């Protein structure tokens, strides 16, 4: 048993044990729930200290199409850094949930699903075998479905859960077929080998990465498969923090990073990624500006931020994408957990019920402010550095230094800068509506219990400090590429450049200005405008996918009953009718039967004689 597998198995076992015995004692369920991700965190930490790893690909020998005991794992800087982040956030979320889900009757199954999710995500992260990757990928999707539907008494939660599962599953058609193509074309299931083989053949690279991109769009909630994520906010806040902000949505980005050489061999796919990322980035940010629900603001913001990562990948900088992935995970998890604390205190997530909470919830106020500042990209928080690295990458591409055409670089650069302004605007609006101004709504407000605000404080630390890793080339970039199974040249520094700093500071100030104007409660809106409802993408789905599908279902059922079924019964009743007609000859008169038989005999004899004679 290898260390990465142990890391995957600890939370998996915790999930199993939690399901089995969690119902008996709440305390035990909580302890098991925290133990799972914590164990994984310890293993990940041990792995991290062992760098450089002697043997990055741990192949247990069971691989190949017909031996899918998919146990081959990859341990490199990319995997270990993301694994550290995942298990860190998951541990905090489990601790937080003990407080947040105190009144939840189904806590034990909830905690078990979170643990199972952690295991699945870690499986994706360390997967050295395409089949292990698929297993982790889909189990994550299932956990997401289960956790969004945690409160399945509510119709909204039921709907959102099914929607999340099906929309991502649509992307997974592409993902699965892409993996099949990759296996079929390269003849191996080992990730590094398959990627290497595919990147040397442009056709395979384009087809496979294009198909896998579909799955990525679904998981990472990019246009046009993004519509599930805002609805997924029907799940409990810790779930939103872990799954729909920090980790699972990042899995799509991670998979592209893992397969990066193959994507680099397919510039067309990268260009498509860039265009999609730009649409998503700006569109989601604008939509976020008019939301009337605390969590939906953050959800659209997540969609927009994920687009930064996808854009970074599209313009040829994997390291920038991974950097933003990690820093976004910290500050977005922080924001969602803080939102959870507010909802816990206020009892509603509608912005009109929240406001002026600064004095009553000081810890949450401080940490959430840090998170929002990081989201906006204020120096020296993590978000500043990671977003800058994306801009720098786009600038490089615009200068024609990358595989994609320069116009792609320009596009990403312009849209990313504009989005910074919009991001600043919605972040300021959110801050004003939540903390500033008079208290709306009534009832006493209390600060979250320590078990809930401790994770907030712990997440604020990396949000404050993580960005500085960008200043030294030997810190993060070298780390990410350490022992890379698919080296991408010498690591480049992720340090900000003067031009991009200037651009983003200007954009940021404009954005703050816009946001400041919307400080009035009247700016909340009722969330019914076309913009607030996501620009009609849901309606488009309804018309283009759901209705045609239901019509087809209707036709199929009709066809089954009226054509196939009727044909079959027709054969039956036809036989019966023929029998009925023949029945009439049976009159019960024996002598008649005999004379018929004799006549037939004579005719037969005559025919025989005639044929013999001629």
């Amino acid at each position, binding site marked *: 048993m290898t260390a990465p597998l142990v890391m995957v198995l600890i939370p998996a076992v915790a999930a199993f044990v939690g399901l089995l015995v969690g119902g008996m004692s709440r305390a035990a369920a909580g302890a098991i729930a925290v133990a799972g991700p914590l164990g994984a965190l310890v293993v990940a930490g041990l792995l991290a200290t062992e760098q450089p790893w002697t043997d990055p690909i741990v192949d247990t020998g069971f691989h190949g199409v017909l031996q899918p005991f998919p146990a081959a794992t990859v341990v490199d800087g990319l995997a270990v850094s993301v694994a550290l982040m995942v298990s860190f956030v998951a541990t905090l979320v489990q601790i937080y949930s003990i407080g947040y889900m105190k009144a939840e009757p189904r806590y034990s199954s909830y905690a078990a699903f979170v643990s199972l999710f952690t295991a699945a995500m870690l499986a994706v992260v360390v997967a050295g075998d395409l089949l292990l990757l698929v297993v982790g990928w889909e189990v994550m999707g299932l956990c997401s479905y289960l956790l969004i539907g945690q409160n399945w008494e509510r119709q909204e939660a039921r709907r959102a859960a099914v929607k999340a599962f099906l929309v991502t599953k649509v992307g997974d058609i592409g993902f699965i077929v892409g993996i099949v193509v990759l296996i079929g074309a390269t003849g191996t299931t080992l990730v590094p080998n398959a990627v290497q083989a595919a990147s040397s053949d442009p056709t395979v690279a384009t087809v496979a990465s294009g198909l896998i991109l579909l799955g990525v769009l679904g998981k990472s909630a990019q246009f046009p498969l993004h519509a599930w994520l805002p609805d997924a906010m029907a799940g409990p806040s810790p779930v939103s923090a872990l799954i729909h902000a920090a980790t699972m949505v990042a899995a799509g980005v991670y998979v592209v990073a893992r397969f990066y050489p193959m994507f680099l061999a397919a510039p067309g796919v990268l260009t498509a990624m860039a265009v999609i990322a730009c649409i998503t980035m700006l569109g989601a940010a604008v939509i976020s500006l008019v939301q009337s629900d605390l969590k939906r603001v953050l959800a659209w913001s997540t969609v927009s931020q994920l687009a930064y990562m996808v854009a970074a990948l599209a313009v040829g900088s994997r390291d920038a994408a991974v950097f933003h992935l990690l820093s976004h995970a910290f500050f977005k998890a922080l924001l969602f957990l803080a939102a959870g604390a507010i909802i816990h205190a206020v009892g509603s997530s509608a912005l009109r019920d929240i406001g002026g909470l600064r004095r009553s919830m000081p810890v949450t106020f401080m940490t959430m402010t840090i998170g929002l500042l990081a989201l906006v990209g204020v120096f020296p928080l993590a978000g500043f550095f990671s977003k800058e690295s994306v801009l720098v990458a786009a600038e490089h591409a615009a200068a024609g230094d990358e595989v994609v055409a320069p116009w792609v670089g320009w596009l990403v650069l312009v849209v990313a800068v504009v989005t910074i302004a919009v991001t600043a605007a919605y972040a300021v609006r959110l801050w004003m509506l939540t903390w500033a101004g008079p208290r709306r709504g009534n009832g006493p407000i209390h600060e979250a219990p320590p078990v809930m605000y401790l994770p907030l404080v712990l997440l604020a630390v990396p949000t404050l400090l993580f960005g500085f890793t960008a200043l030294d080339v030997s810190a993060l970039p070298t780390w990410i590429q350490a022992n890379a199974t698919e080296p991408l040249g010498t690591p480049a520094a992720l340090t900000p450049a003067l031009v991009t700093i200037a651009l983003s500071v200007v954009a940021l100030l404009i954005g703050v200005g816009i946001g400041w104007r919307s400080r009035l409660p009247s700016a909340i809106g009722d969330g019914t405008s076309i913009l607030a409802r996501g620009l009609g993408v849901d309606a488009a789905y309804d018309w283009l996918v759901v209705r045609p599908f239901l019509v087809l279902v209707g036709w199929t059922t009709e066809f089954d009953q009226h054509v196939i079924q009727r044909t079959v019964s027709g054969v039956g009743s036809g036989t019966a009718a023929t029998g009925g007609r023949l*029945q009439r000859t*049976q*009159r*019960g*008169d024996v*002598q008649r039967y*005999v004379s018929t038989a*004799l006549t037939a005999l004579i005719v037969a004899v005559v025919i025989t004689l005639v044929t013999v004679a001629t």
Partner: protein
Amino acid sequence: MHLSLPLLLSVSLFGIGVYGLLVRRNAILVLMSVELMLNGVNVSLVAFDVFWAEALRAGQSLAIFVITIAAAEIGLGLAILLLLYRMRGSIAIDEATDLREDAA
């Protein structure tokens, strides 16, 4: 003796049997007609046996078979007729049409 003579006898017996089978109403007579037909066949079997005179004497063995079966058949037949008579007081064959199929 020429083969044609016993064959003529056989054919006449069989023909009389067929006639009786087809036209008589009385079930006993119908059964007797069947016996006549069987014995007509028996005559020709024995006649051919003598004519061919082959080692296994297949014709004679077959005739004995037929006789045995005919005995069984007439036994069963008479038993059925007896029951039929008890049930309905008549053994007219064209009245016994209980097994007819009513048109569906």
